[in-house]
């Protein structure tokens, strides 16, 4: 079965963590809320109710687009994507088509086609009530801002898809615009898979939907590549279709064939005026772009001499990273970077519950209890040497008894053995 090359494109939906929904004032946090308690005429699609766009959601989408290296449509608009489904109360979803907010980006060696903003749908709940099969609708999720990120079909393998998506998730989380929680459904994955023998992008693609974990995205793509390759081997043609993933069996199954594909009849949403960004507004958003995870990892390795694992910890724990850096804002904190990192990572000091000032005090207490190892001893000696230039100069001029004064200084800070302290100091002075 060699010689077949897969083409994989990804579509990622991310719910934004704005306070209110996309087009109304209802609370957007819908997880585990009593059904239909966070609704209003707008998100219920009642006759006459009009959508008013959430500025913050738009800014965040542009913000994400900029982070993903996208170009921004300074003149953009929403469109109506029309189809009937019970979870879509207006009979259309407000989305973007011709002019997404962001397009032509690049992230971690994969080209991004577009990043656009739309509204989430309601949730259908299938139940049996009094012996009767019924479908209930919860509209709490309806109208929650949803960003769609679409990549070019440049993902090389199922594993690549998984790794790339993990990185994307980390980036979005670091921007604090979504928790990207797959279990809560605030991050949802779709993959477009096709295979080709001649290395050219095939004219069809199979859309894999309803995938709710990185592991499953990998499995679904793997299965799909296998399935399509086998069909080709048998000389069969593969149709454009939409397939679901059955995680128990690890297989994909047909959901909708090409013939059943929706015809969405997009047209510009007349209830919302076009959205125009000035250069000034874009600059303002651009300035808010924080350090990206990869940049941060590299900086922590370089600047603080941490190893990869230590740096990774700080990348995935932004609050710990911030705490760490605050400690060094004041010049008088001289503990070795790696020692501090270890105290934080191993939670030797309960840093999450104390202020940076108290952290420093605790460090001092620990040090009174004896320095833990040679490295720390050396560090302490260096601090004393650096802090007493006159005594050091005197020593170097021949006044060797000044070493006693320096040992005394070291003893003031730590209960170190005076002989060890003397040895350590002499290492530096000699």
């Amino acid at each position, binding site marked *: 079965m060699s010689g077949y090359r897969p083409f994989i494109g990804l579509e990622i939906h991310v719910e934004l963590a704005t306070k209110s929904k996309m087009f109304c004032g209802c609370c957007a946090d819908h997880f585990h809320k009593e059904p239909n308690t966070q609704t209003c*005429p707008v998100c219920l699609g009642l*006759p*006459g109710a*009009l959508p*008013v766009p959430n500025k913050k959601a738009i800014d965040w989408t542009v913000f994400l687009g900029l982070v993903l290296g996208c170009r921004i449509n300074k003149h953009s608009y929403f469109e109506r994507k*029309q189809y009937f489904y019970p979870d879509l109360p207006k009979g259309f979803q407000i989305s973007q088509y011709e002019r997404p907010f962001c397009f032509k980006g690049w992230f971690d060696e994969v080209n991004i086609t577009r990043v656009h903003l739309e509204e989430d749908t309601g949730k259908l709940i299938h139940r049996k009530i009094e012996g009767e099969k019924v479908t209930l609708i919860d509209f709490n999720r309806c109208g929650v801002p949803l960003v769609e990120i679409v990549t070019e079909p440049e993902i090389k393998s199922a594993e690549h898809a998984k790794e790339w998506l993990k990185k994307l998730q980390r980036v979005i989380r670091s921007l604090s615009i979504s928790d990207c929680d797959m279990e809560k459904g605030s991050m949802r994955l779709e993959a477009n898979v096709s295979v080709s023998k001649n290395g050219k992008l095939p004219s069809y693609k199979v859309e894999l939907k309803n995938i709710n974990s990185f592991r499953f995205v990998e499995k679904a793509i793997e299965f799909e590549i296998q399935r399509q390759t086998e069909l080709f081997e048998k000389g069969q043609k593969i149709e454009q279709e939409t397939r679901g993933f059955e995680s128990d069996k690890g297989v994909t199954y047909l959901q909708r064939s090409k013939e059943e594909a929706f015809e969405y009849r997009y047209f510009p949403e007349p*209830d*919302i005026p076009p959205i125009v960004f000035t250069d000034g507004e874009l600059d303002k958003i651009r300035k808010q772009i924080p350090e990206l995870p990869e940049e941060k990892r590299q900086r922590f390795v370089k600047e603080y001499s941490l190893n990869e694992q230590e740096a990774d910890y700080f990348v995935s724990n932004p609050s710990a990273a911030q705490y760490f850096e605050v400690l060094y804002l004041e010049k008088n904190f001289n503990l070795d970077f790696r020692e501090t990192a270890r105290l934080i990572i191993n939670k030797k000091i309960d840093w999450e519950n104390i202020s940076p000032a108290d952290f420093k005090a605790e460090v001092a207490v620990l040090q009174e209890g004896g320095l833990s190892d040679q490295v720390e001893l050396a560090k302490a000696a260096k601090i004393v040497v650096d802090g007493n230039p006159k005594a050091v100069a005197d020593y170097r001029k021949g006044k060797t008894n000044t070493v006693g004064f320096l040992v005394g200084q070291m003893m003031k800070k730590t209960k170190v053995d005076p002989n060890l302290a003397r040895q350590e100091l002499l290492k530096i002075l000699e």
Partner: protein
Amino acid sequence: MDIVDNSIRETVDLFKKRKISCQEIVRACFERIEKYNLSINAYLTLNKEQALKKAQDVDNNRVKGRELPPLAGIPVALKDIYSTKNLRTTAASKIIDNYLPAYSATVVQKLESVGAIIMGKVNCDAFAHGATGENSDFGSVKNPWDLEYVAGGSSGGSAAAVAFGGCLMAMGTDTGGSIRNPASYCNLVGLKPTYGRVSRSGVISMGSSLDSMGHLTRTVEDCALVLSVTAGYDPLDATSSRKPVDFYLQDLSHPAIKGLKIGLPQEYFGRELNPEIKTLILKAAQQFTDLGAEVDEVSLPNTAYTIPVYYLIMSSEVSANLARFDGIRFGHAREMFGEEAKRRIMLGTFALSAGYYDAYYLRASKVRTLLRQDFEKAFAKFDALLAPVVPIKPRKIGEKEQEKLKLYLEDYVTGPVNLAGLPALALPCGFWHNIPMGMQLIGPQFSEKKLFEVGQAYQDVTDWHLKRPPLVEEMG
């Protein structure tokens, strides 16, 4: 003639002088409704109990000497596509004949907040689709001036209710002429405000980029008074304008139209225009000249494209706006849509379909820009345009049946105003035999104040607007 046949202004004066009470006028309106509604078919749902209770509150407050808001105690009818909380709202369509809205339209809330008394909901062409008031699933609206004639549409019930004294003013909506047309048929003043001047929130959408929330009154002054209540930015409508609202009543006592330049769009006066109606409009033009205005011809060269552009854009928007009526959460299944709604849904669905979008919807949007530019050029030279409202001889009930498409073509004098988002004021200017006839004054965006002045100057020297239907006059 009776207390319910006065203008709002006159009624407010009578209230102030304690000549009449609010309860008296509300009861008098309900008496009229009892007497005529069965034959005219204007009201679909009455709000009698609430209205009488509110009237009592207003009277109590007046007795206590409290300062009362501008429309306190004024009976108002609402076209049945304005959502009213807990008051049935049907859009005159059987598909939602049992729908009770959970909220009220912004305009309704504004009217209530200034003391207006909501008398009930009035008939119209279902979902505002039509220009005769005959497309209602609850039967045609009849013209109080002659029951054999239509009351105009789509806001036919609004016009008829005011005309027979079932209220002193009514809210309508105008997507392609739906306020101006029935105003003309029923001898009323009808305003189609600038798009974005009055909130659309809570009014069942027809063509979202065209819909304007306006009203019908007996005088220009009343019309200005009502707009000063309904106009303004609404955070619930992203297309509403933040432009401050003018003081519409300020200069009405001394309207200045000397030297005002009024244009007559020659395309509106072509051979399609009924010659008798043409004579009426040109007579009004002469009166404006006599008042010191400069009247001259102007060209709106793209007028010929109005109908295809209007019907493509409107029906495209209609097809999407009516998608929410799926019978799942409220109302009935989609086969309950009337014939006209189905026709427009199909037309719009077709215009937006892949392969046709560029040729229809997109092309129409581009031509719409050209139509807009026609007006911009005209307003570079003119302060206002004068035009007919109803270009053909008034219709009798049932007359339209064989000629649906011909009916569409009549919108060519009203539709362009909606496509360009302009304000237009329709006001009585004479009679076609026994049926009233109106004219419209069209202005640049947000020029309502100027239009009111021009209209007031006309009503200061004419008395068409003071005439009441024979059935009312006969009441003696």
